[in-house]
C-alpha cells in the first residue's frame, strides 16, 4: 500500500529476454529494443544491468521486487503470445502456473491467446491454458504476428466472437489487448483502438482493457472510455511517461479523466520493464498543471481518485472485493517481510541473487561500455 492505499500493478512481466529465446529476424531486434527502452526510460538508480535484464527473469525475483521493494500489493500477470518473436512468447504459460501456485493471494493471471492462429486452435489453446490456471481472470492478445505478417480485428464476428463466447463460458472477466505501441516496423492500423469498440458493444458483459492506453490515439481511447462502460485504459508503459515526459503523461491522463471519468483508468508499470516503485511514487505525488485543470475543469488528483486508479478500478472491473482481498493478505509473510525490511532499495533482491550490488553492477557495465567505446545502453 502507498500511504494506506492498496496498489495493484495491472501488468507485470518476468520476461524471458535470454538470447536463445529470441526468434527469427525481428525477435533479436525486439529483444534489444526492450533493453534500449528500459535503459533510456529509467534513471540509473532504477535500471537493471543488461546482463540481468536480457535473461530469463524469474517469477520469484519479480514478486520479491514488487512486494519488498515497492508499495505494490497485488500483481496481474499477462501470459504473452509473441510467438513469432520469442520461442516461449516472452512471458510463458509456465510462469503463469508457477505464479498462481506460489503466490495465489498476491497475483492474478490473464491467459495469453493468439487469434491469428484461427478460431479452432485458439479455443483449444484457451482451454488448455484454462485447465492449467482455472482461476485465471482474463485473456491477453497482441494485434499481430510476423513471419509471415498476420493480424486481426477485435470486432471480427467470425474470427473473434467465438473466442469471446468461450472466454465468457469459462467465467473469465476481461479481454486485454496490446494497442498503441507497434512491435517493430509493422503496419500501424491494428494498433488503433476502434476495433475494440465493436467488441465491447457486442459483448457488454465482458470488459475490454486497452493496454498502453495513452501512448498514441489518446483522444480516440478517451472517447471509447466515455462511450462504453466496459472499456478500460491500462497505463502499462504509459506510466513511465512520468519519468521521461511527465507533461505528456498529464495530457493523456487529463484527456482520459475528462471523457472517461474516474473509474476507467488502471495503473500498471509492466515491471520488470521498469522498477515498479519510482513511477508509482511520481504518480502518488502528481498534481495536474493548472492549465490542464482549467482546460478540462477537473477536480484535484486527490487520494480517493488516485486510490481508484491504483487499485479499485481494476478490482471493480473484474469483480474482486478489494477490501476483503486486502484484509485476507494483511499480515501475511510479504507484509511481515516488507515491514521488517522497511522497504528495500530498488533491485536489492535481484542483486542478492546475482551476487553483486546493483549500483556496483551498473558501474561495471558503464566501465566496460566506456572501455569498448560504446555509449551506455548500446548493444554489446
Amino acid at each position, binding site marked *: 500500500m502507498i500511504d494506506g492505499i492498496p496498489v495493484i500493478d495491472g501488468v507485470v512481466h518476468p520476461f524471458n529476454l535470454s538470447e536463445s529465446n529470441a526468434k527469427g529476424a525481428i525477435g533479436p531486434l525486439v529483444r534489444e529494443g526492450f533493453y534500449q527502452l528500459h535503459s533510456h526510460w529509467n534513471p540509473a538508480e532504477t535500471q537493471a544491468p543488461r546482463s540481468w535484464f536480457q535473461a530469463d527473469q524469474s517469477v520469484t525475483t519479480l514478486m520479491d521486487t514488487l512486494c519488498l521493494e515497492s508499495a505494490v500489493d497485488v500483481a496481474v500477470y499477462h501470459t504473452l503470445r509473441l510467438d513469432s518473436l520469442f520461442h516461449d512468447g516472452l512471458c510463458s504459460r509456465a510462469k503463469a502456473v508457477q505464479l498462481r501456485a506460489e503466490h495465489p493471494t498476491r497475483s492474478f493471471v490473464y491467459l495469453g491467446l493468439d487469434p491469428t492462429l484461427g478460431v479452432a486452435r485458439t479455443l483449444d489453446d484457451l482451454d488448455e491454458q484454462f485447465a492449467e490456471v482455472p482461476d485465471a481472470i482474463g485473456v491477453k492478445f497482441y494485434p499481430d504476428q510476423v513471419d509471415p505478417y498476420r493480424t486481426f480485428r477485435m470486432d471480427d464476428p467470425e474470427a473473434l466472437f467465438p473466442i469471446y463466447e468461450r472466454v465468457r463460458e469459462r467465467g473469465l472477466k476481461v479481454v486485454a489487448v496490446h494497442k498503441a505501441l507497434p512491435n517493430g516496423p509493422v503496419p500501424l492500423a491494428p494498433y488503433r483502438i476502434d476495433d475494440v469498440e465493436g467488441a465491447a458493444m457486442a459483448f457488454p458483459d465482458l470488459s475490454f482493457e486497452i493496454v498502453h492506453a495513452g501512448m498514441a490515439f489518446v483522444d480516440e481511447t478517451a472517447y471509447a472510455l466515455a462511450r462504453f462502460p466496459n472499456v478500460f485504459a491500462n497505463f502499462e508503459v504509459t506510466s513511465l511517461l512520468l519519468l521521461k515526459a511527465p507533461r505528456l503523461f498529464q495530457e493523456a491522463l487529463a484527456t482520459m479523466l475528462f471523457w472517461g471519468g474516474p473509474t476507467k483508468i488502471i495503473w500498471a508499470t509492466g515491471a520488470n520493464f521498469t522498477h515498479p516503485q519510482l513511477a508509482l511514487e511520481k504518480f502518488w505525488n502528481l498534481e495536474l498543471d493548472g492549465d490542464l485543470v482549467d482546460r478540462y475543469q477537473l477536480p484535484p488528483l486527490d487520494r480517493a481518485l488516485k*486510490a481508484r486508479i491504483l487499485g479499485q478500478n481494476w478490482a471493480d472491473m473484474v469483480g474482486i472485493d478489494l477490501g476483503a482481498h486486502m484484509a485476507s493478505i494483511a499480515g501475511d509473510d510479504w507484509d511481515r517481510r516488507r515491514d521488517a525490511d522497511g522497504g528495500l532499495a530498488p533491485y536489492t533482491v535481484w542483486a542478492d541473487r546475482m551476487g553483486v550490488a546493483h549500483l556496483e553492477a551498473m558501474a561495471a557495465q558503464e566501465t566496460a561500455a566506456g572501455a569498448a567505446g560504446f555509449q551506455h545502453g548500446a548493444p554489446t
Partner: protein
Amino acid sequence: MTGIDRHAVDEALDRVVDPCSNALGEPLGLREMGLTPSVDIDDASGTVTVTMRLTSPCCEYGPTMALAVEQELAAVPGVRSATVTIDYGAAWTPAEIMPNASVRLAERRSHTISVFDVQPYEWSTWKSTESLQGSDPLLTSRLDSTGALS
C-alpha cells in the same frame, strides 16, 4: 550559386507523414506535427541537417521516418547532403502541432464526437470519497474519510 529554398525543404518535411495522424485519417506532415524543431540549411555546402523528436519516446517508427525525411530532402534542388538525427530525449506534446494542422485534427475529432455523440464524464457527480466507498461495501467499512484503508 543557387541557395536551397526553405519552402521546398518545408514541403519535403511534410511529405513524410506522421503515422498516427495518418491512422486517424487526418495525415499530418512531420513539420506540421512539430516533430522537426531544428532545421539547419547550409547553402554553401548544400547540406540540410534536421533534428527530429517523436510523439512518444518509444515510437517504433522513428528511424523509418528519419530515413524517409533524408530521401525527401535529397530530392530538393541544391541539397547535396541531408542528415536527420532523432533526439529521443526531446519532449513533445500536442501543443507543438502547428495551428492550422491542429485545427484540421480537431475538426476530425469533432466529427467523431458528433457522429458518435460522445459525452464527457459528468464530474459534478463525483464526490471522491463517497464514490470510492460506494462501489464496495466491504471496502467502505475499512476506509477512512481520505480513502485510506484502516
